[in-house]
């Protein structure tokens, strides 16, 4: 399998992620937070706030943003960027929903 071909992994049904919440996916390289918004969009970010490494999966999801539980940095789920005056970026990973199941692109997720 080349590094170009997407390795979409089925990580479970969408309903297992609470609306306006997140679950984590543990991989050998890192933990990934998979967020579900109120309207069933999904986003995947490395589960580390660019500020002090807080677990973003534990934050309050509002709109397409999450508030880090440690110091309330607001991270944009789509871009991974910190909003407002804060600067930093959480790494993004491709994620999609197909027929009610969530797929994560593991090729990206396992690269350093």
């Amino acid at each position, binding site marked *: 399998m080349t590094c170009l071909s997407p390795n979409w*992994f089925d*990580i*479970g049904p969408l309903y*297992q*992620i*609470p*609306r*306006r*919440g997140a*679950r*984590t*996916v*543990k*991989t*050998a390289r890192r*933990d990934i937070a*998979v967020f579900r*918004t*109120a*309207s*069933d*969009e999904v986003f995947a970010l490395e589960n580390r706030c660019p500020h*002090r*490494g*807080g*677990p973003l999966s*534990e*934050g*309050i*999801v*509002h*709109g*397409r*943003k999450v*508030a880090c*539980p*440690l110091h*309330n940095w*607001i991270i944009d789920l789509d871009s991974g960027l910190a909003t407002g005056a804060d600067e930093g970026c959480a790494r993004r990973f491709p994620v999609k929903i*197909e*027929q009610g199941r*969530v797929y*994560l692109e*593991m090729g990206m*997720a*396992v690269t350093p």
Partner: protein
Amino acid sequence: MTLPNGKRKPEKLVAVGNGMAAGRLLEELLARSPGRYEIAVFGAEPRVNYNRIMLSPVLAGEKAFADIVIHDDAWYANNGVTLHKGKTVVAIDRAARTATTACGHVETYDKLVIATGSTPIAIPVHGVNLPGVVTFRDLDDVDAMLRQARQGGHAAVIGGGLLGLEAAAGLKANGMGVSVVHLMPTLMERQLDASAGYLLQKAIERRGIDVFTGANTQAILGESKVEGVKLDDGRTIDADMVVMAVGIRPNARLAKEAGLAVDRGVKVDDAMRTSDANIYAVGECVEHRGQCYGLVAPLFEMAKILAAQLSGEDSAAYHGSVASTKLKVTGIDLFSAGDFSESDENDEIVLRDPSRGVYKRIALRDNRIVGAVLYGDTEDGPWFLDLLKKNADIDAMRGTLIFGRAYQGGAPLDPMAAVAALPDDAEICGCNGVCKGTIVAAITAKGAASLEQVRAHTKASASCGQCATKVETLIAATLGNGYRASNRKPMCRCIDLTHEEVRGFILSKSLDSMPAVMQELGWKTSCGCPACRPALNYYLLCAWPGQYQDDAQSRFVNERVHANIQKDGTFSVVPRMWGGLTTPNELRAIADVAERFDIPTVKVTGGQRIDLLGVKKEDLPAIWADLGKAGLVSGHAYAKGVRTVKTCVGKEWCRFGTQNSTSLGVQLERLLCGSWTPAKVKLAVSGCPRNCAEATVKDIGVICVDSGFDIHIAGAAGLRVRATDLLGHVDTERETLECVAAVLQLYREEAAYLDRLYKWVEKTGLERVRRIIMEDRAARQALYQRFLVSQRAVRKDPWAERAAGFGLQEFSPLAIVMPIAAE
């Protein structure tokens, strides 16, 4: 092929299905290339082509079948189209290019169009095949419903989507009792957000239709015919008829049996061609780029492209549709289009007019409209849809976009100048009908100089509060330099009202859900922010104990997982030790847990508890289970709630002790524990004025004296150190418990979220609190009773619930993916 007279023999086109997609295709095709094809249409229904989406008005009695016929028999005859009514095609032979009907008729084709539409989904529950269970798809279904309606009785409609609600409204109009059973928490959740869903539910209920949301149908009851519906929470609804309206699925069976590529629907490319070059598909049976459509506009767009293709325009291509929805229930105006899925305060515009029941929301991305939801006033829906489809940059009109097309072109006004420019009869407060002139008169003639005074004199801003900012601007404009701005602090950027005002309205307007609060009070965002959501969740919990459903996703992580998050993402666990008392058995359990789970740090807290630090989230339920076996429960050390009651040893041991402070502390803690409060609440009971339990820096402190108990409140020893104020003296332990619970309840009911108790006392005044608690016996007892009621709802140990399996998914990863490295 050329005929003897030199003309080309027309190709033979066969359409399987005679619904709206096929009908539109024929129209488009005949307009584009009349005579190009010899056309035969097979329809399963024994009638001509009609406007299926108008079945709802037929059911409601607003239209007759004749009104909704699109093509009558004459039309087919005039256009040379052979219509086979009531003939279902059951097989396609692709090699021989024939289609065969159920009655054995074989038709050959050059080009075939599959337009088999969709079929209603029936949920697989017991009783689904009983007589009296109907779907809502064609005229026969409508006739069946009308037959039942003539006999009266009650209908249960399963499904609160577009179709279900139209069926419900139609049956209600025919005099039936109607209940709607909907699986999701809000109606039409695919097309509407929670705010619009809330307004819709109110409107449906106003028609006398019962709405059950979050309701999962377990079985349809009845022996020989339908008698009712049973929900999985045990409730039953008596019913003489059940309308199954949970959704539709593409009817792709014929295509699949013919060996065409089928996934959810019949797969087509941008030319509407299936995997067989001579076979096309159109309408609801189609799957295009992974999408299936159940609305009429996309079908028409597909029909247009297919007609072009069949006319030889190879470049015509379908690129998918932006769906827009309207509910066809008279008197309910709603519109939704595009992807209004989650957006946030920076890329959405929200307008709410609570008094008119209007809600509008436009979702933007990069200054372009990506979606819109309109409720109550849908006039601008098509305009928004047009801007959306054109991908138009709306930056220049962003400030006025939400007001619609009629308001474009004007320059935004300075709010002060805008208010000054209003005529005297301009309405400022829509709820109470207060005009500008009335408010100005109150300011100039009656000397009202603050929002509160204007409100008292005129009732302006006293109902929904949306106009509060406007009224303040008007006061400032009228008084000029004489106006000193109040230090009203809005709750957050989503709303101009203060915490206290929001709390007041929740009670006075009986708002019992988050969408209700946001709509009726005019939230400027569609679903709040991390500041207002936890506050609202608390206010609703406090106002409607036992009734309001706690929203875990609106809680800070600590309260959601019942442990304290630490800087490295691990958690700390603090079991409750009533009044600071423990036993060898409890200590042994704590020691065992610490060893078994490799807990790195065990520490004694300032509140006389033991803190286990560095616990991995996934270990929490197992740790709680172990602690629970020794009788240890949650210490709520993570909560905006009652934390600890610290005690000294009191007269049982101490030579100075005047009362049994330890036992009083235990009693207090047992009475108060589990209560959610605006901010954390710490208590202490000292056995004598030497005050070893440090009761005078607690939110509530009791100091025992020879003659009884001094009750202190409003202390703190955190960011700010503040000694308590004496609230009063009581003689007995029983009175102490009642007074403390009553103060706590008053604080719970009145304080702004995150205000510690001392802050609330400073705002409301110690004297007022003292009068209510110490002098007004009836008020105190009422507070105490309300506190007891609220405690009933929290009497379960959250740790025990989770150790027993409740919400376990919170504590485990969704997936663990450890790829087998093969490089």
